[in-house]
């Protein structure tokens, strides 16, 4: 197996929180990691058909410590450590889903999912279509994605745009505490395979839980910050960067709206166009590479559907077209940042309007 992470690298170990932090969450504040764990625990309690499998999800508690404690709570039948064989355990998950179970398969990073791409694309995504709707694959795959933690090129890419290309899959991306806590249930309820992309830089994110919120959909985008001057369209790990950029821009008198796509397939065209028609300017922020990217798809849809509402060309902030560098300063330079987003917004506004 060419899996390079026989031992999770040091940085991943460092990502694991101290034990105390994992055990005593404040009732209102929660980390993204704890919210994901709460979702897993709730799903395992709610439905005996649900089980979790993947590399190091059991005794190690998950590479990012999301499933820490679940083996003790639910036992090895439902929290299953797998060999380092993505194609095999994703294939097993597909079989289990077809057989009536509700598997949650964790793939350590999206880079490794390429070993299971044949299973995901040729099997999971096609069966419903090829069987005339007789065979559904209600499989959920959780994948870590994204860069920013010095994990090197083989652990840091953002390939969700590739998966969003494939008919037959649903791609959902939790970027907030609430979505981390609630998207899994919606994904399990889908009769079709759902890929949930968790940005590795978000696991330590802390935020408020919305009291009383127990369910979300995985169909709609959300306005995370309303604004008048420009629509910042983003998802996942870039959402906090966009919100930070929006704060800085607000200090300069620029009022941007931040759209969290939440679902990359299907894309919520209506929400995107509604926002762009109001602000008349759009900037897409996507940690994927620019060429042939999800950002390119969104840009095209805006041009197709809202051309006559545009007051400026649509712009993009994407990752530099290099394998993600290991060195911190190079990695930072390659990725979208609040500074680059602010500069791009000012560019779209143009003519010194940004002050």
């Amino acid at each position, binding site marked *: 197996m060419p899996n390079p992470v026989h031992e999770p690298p040091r940085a991943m170990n460092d990502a694991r929180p101290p034990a105390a932090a994992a055990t005593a969450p404040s009732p209102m504040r929660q980390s993204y990691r704890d919210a994901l764990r709460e979702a897993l625990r709730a799903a395992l309690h709610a439905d005996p058909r649900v089980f979790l499998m993947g590399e190091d999800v059991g005794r190690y508690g998950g590479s990012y410590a999301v499933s820490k404690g679940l083996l003790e709570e639910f036992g090895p039948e439902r929290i299953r450590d797998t060999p380092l064989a993505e194609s095999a355990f994703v294939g097993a998950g597909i079989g289990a889903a077809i057989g009536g179970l509700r598997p949650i398969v964790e793939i350590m990073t999206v880079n490794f999912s390429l070993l299971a791409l044949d299973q995901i694309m040729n099997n999971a995504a096609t069966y419903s279509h090829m069987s005339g709707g007789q065979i559904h694959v209600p499989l959920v795959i959780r994948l870590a994605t994204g860069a920013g933690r010095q994990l090197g090129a083989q652990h840091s890419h953002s390939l969700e745009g590739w998966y969003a290309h494939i008919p037959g899959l649903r791609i959902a991306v939790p970027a907030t505490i609430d979505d981390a806590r609630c998207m899994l249930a919606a994904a399990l309820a889908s009769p079709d395979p759902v890929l949930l992309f968790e940005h590795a830089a978000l696991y330590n994110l802390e935020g408020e839980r919305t009291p009383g919120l127990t369910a979300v959909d995985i169909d709609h985008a959300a306005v995370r910050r309303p604004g008048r001057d420009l629509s910042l369209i983003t998802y996942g790990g870039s959402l906090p960067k966009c919100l930070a950029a929006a704060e800085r821009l607000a200090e300069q008198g620029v009022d941007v709206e931040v759209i969290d796509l939440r679902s990359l397939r299907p894309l919520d065209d209506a929400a995107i166009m509604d926002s762009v028609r109001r602000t008349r300017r759009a900037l897409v922020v996507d940690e994927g590479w620019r060429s042939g990217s999800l950002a390119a798809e969104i840009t095209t849809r805006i041009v197709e559907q809202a*051309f*006559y509402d*545009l*007051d400026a060309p649509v712009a993009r902030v994407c990752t530099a077209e290099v394998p993600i560098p290991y060195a911190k300063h190079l990695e930072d330079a390659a990725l979208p940042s609040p500074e680059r987003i602010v500069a791009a917004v000012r560019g779209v506004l143009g*003519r*010194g309007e940004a002050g």
Partner: protein
Amino acid sequence: MRIEFRLPSLGADMDSALLTAWLKKPGDPIAHGEPIVTVETAKGLIDVEAYENGRVVDLIVEPGTTVPVGAVLAHLEVEHPSPTAASAPPRPDATPAVAAAQPSEALPPREAFLPSEAGKPPPSTPSATPRPSAGHPRVSPAARRRAQELGLSQDLLEQSAAGAILHVADVEQLAATRAVTGSAAAAAPDPRIAMRAAIGAAMARAKREIPHYYLGQAVDFGAARDWLARYNAGVPVQDRLIEAVLIAKAVALAAARFEGFNGRFSDGRFEPATAVHAGVAIALRGGGLVAPAVLDADRKDLPTLMRDFSALVTRVRAGRMRSGEFAAATITLTSLGADGADVLYPIINPPQVAIVGAGAVREQAVVRDGQLAIRPTLTLALAADHRVTDGRAGSRFLRAIAELLQHPDTL
């Protein structure tokens, strides 16, 4: 050869003009530089001049009609049409007449500007259509639709879009300006309202687009004042020089010597001018301000400059301006005169890149040779375009003007 005689654009934010009178009738001969028609713009009455020798064939637009920039006013039969006649303004030594393809900005004579890239074709259009030469006008899709809702014509949009991208905010401003001038024209015409709107639009554009920087310089005006007193004592009253002419000459000389202050900024870059056409801000009776140019101010001696300046003021205050001097300025001087404030911080007149403001000359206590002295002092303020120059260059430019004023006999 028969050519179309079109309404030229005579200043920033000019969209249209009221044709007030024909100075020629069909069959009349016309000579190069001769006024053909008088039009009224927001800035006053302007005589539009012919660029060729020939005769008038027919007049198309009736007096009393408001026509957009670029509209065909008449047909002329001309002897030797200049290759640029139908579309580009003429050489600085001629008086511009027909500038059909020009955008709404005040365009100085094109030949005053050096192409910044070698081998670049001169920016003139061979066609006589009222389109800017740079292909399609760049109006954002949303701005187009807003213009439609506001009832602005396609022509107006295209003229306004030349040289800059038109966004929704620009269209709304255009409509607001037009509403002011339009309603004024419809009812009792109040030129002051239209003038104020035109100044407002040009200055708003300057403040929006031009990153100004400002520098101030106190100038010992003693040598200049003494020289003026001696000179004026020896000439008849009508030939006497005024301070403003001395300052204008110093500004023009410095503008010719220092790069980055004399020219225009368009399409995202600075185009230096080879000649110095000094715009002079002239206050009008009843309010308002225009800044027509004294052509080739750096090359004229002081008596000539004074005569040109007096003639210009007289014509402008009488409400008669020539299209050539109206749009030609490459740098502007604005001066408050003896009863003005100490310092005038000016706003650049786009598409120019620099303007010098002169306050009143005052007796001030200054340190001179280690002693307190009372000296006539002039405070100059420079506003320049940071896209073109920096404060250091501006400082050298301003100090050069101050230095020139120490040697008035060499001006």
